[in-house]
């Protein structure tokens, strides 16, 4: 329960940073708050706001923000098997993936398998709706607070999000997941330096494939 309170706080605080940025970029209040619910992926929202602020063409903005949120593709693929066996949940699969964030994905991936299959959909929905609501409140607060907070507070709110993910993933137990996280962490900055646009998908595929086969190889040795 304590972990959930922390999660809701982190989501709201991170989106406070987004609210300020959205205002500085010229977005209206309504667009800023709605984007948190409809895009629901901070890197894509940030890319859209920054490009909008410099007057980039629509197609360029759409492409850049879409690429920044590419991670949702493998995430949605790995989350859905949890709901596969329950027809009542499976029917909602296109809605579930719209509500998915890194937080709700990671938490559901960790806690979902131990829940009875007919409760997973409700668990995920409750968690996601709470996070989206917290995110919208955070965005609204950030939009109004823009420019009033001292730099060290704003920058710490932005820092909170990656730090939270670091410790969220420090709790991953599956060996192939741990390997993928370590290899990805080493590879990420290198592939980004080689290609800022395509670095991240390459990093994911290389790190994921290496981890997958390393884990299988180790399992072979154990047997």
């Amino acid at each position, binding site marked *: 329960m304590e*972990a959930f309170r*922390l999660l809701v706080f982190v989501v709201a605080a991170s989106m406070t940073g987004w609210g300020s*940025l959205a205002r500085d970029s010229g*977005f209206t209040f309504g*667009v800023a708050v709605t*984007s948190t619910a*409809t*895009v*629901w992926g901070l890197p*894509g*929202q940030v890319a*859209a706001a*920054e490009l*909008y602020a410099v007057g980039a063409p*629509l197609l360029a903005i*759409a492409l850049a*923000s*879409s690429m920044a*949120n*590419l*991670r*949702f*593709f*493998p*995430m*949605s*693929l*790995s989350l*859905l*098997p949890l709901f596969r*066996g329950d027809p009542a949940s499976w029917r909602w699969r296109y809605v579930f*993936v*719209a509500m*998915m964030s890194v937080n709700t994905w990671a938490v559901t*991936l960790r806690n979902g398998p131990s829940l009875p299959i007919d409760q997973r959909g409700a668990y995920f929905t409750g968690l996601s709706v709470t996070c989206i609501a917290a995110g919208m409140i955070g965005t609204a607060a950030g939009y109004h607070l823009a420019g009033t907070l001292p730099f*060290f507070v704003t920058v*710490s709110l*932005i*820092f909170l999000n*990656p730090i939270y993910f*670091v*410790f*969220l*993933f*420090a*709790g991953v137990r599956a060996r192939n*997941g741990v390997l*993928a*996280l370590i*290899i*990805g*962490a080493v590879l*990420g*900055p290198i592939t980004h330096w080689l290609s800022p646009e395509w670095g991240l*998908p390459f990093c*994911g595929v290389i*790190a*994921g*494939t290496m*981890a997958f086969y390393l884990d299988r190889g180790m399992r072979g040795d154990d047997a």
Partner: protein
Amino acid sequence: MPEPHVLAMWGLLAVVSLATYVWRATGVVIAARIKPDGRLSQWFTCVAYGMLAGLISRIMLMPVGILAHTLLVDRLVALGCGFALFMLFRRAMPPGVVGAVGAFMVLAALRGYGIL
């Protein structure tokens, strides 16, 4: 009637929302066609972890935007403080997160006021 540039902004939001949703929906289409506990599904989980780890490590080491105005050493010291507390409290997440962000905020404040 709202002003034209406000309408255009809502249009932009619709396009950007769809452009993100496409990835989520593609995942659904493919997930329905592969074995839930099969090797392919496990591989995709590994790819997702690899991508997220790469993203986070890139943000920590080579940030863009507002975080780029902070020092690498501050970010790493903060992360170190967080990990020390994380281990001290038997791998509990809240002390790790609070410790890291707290340390970072103190460092950023000290630098902001010219003390450090």
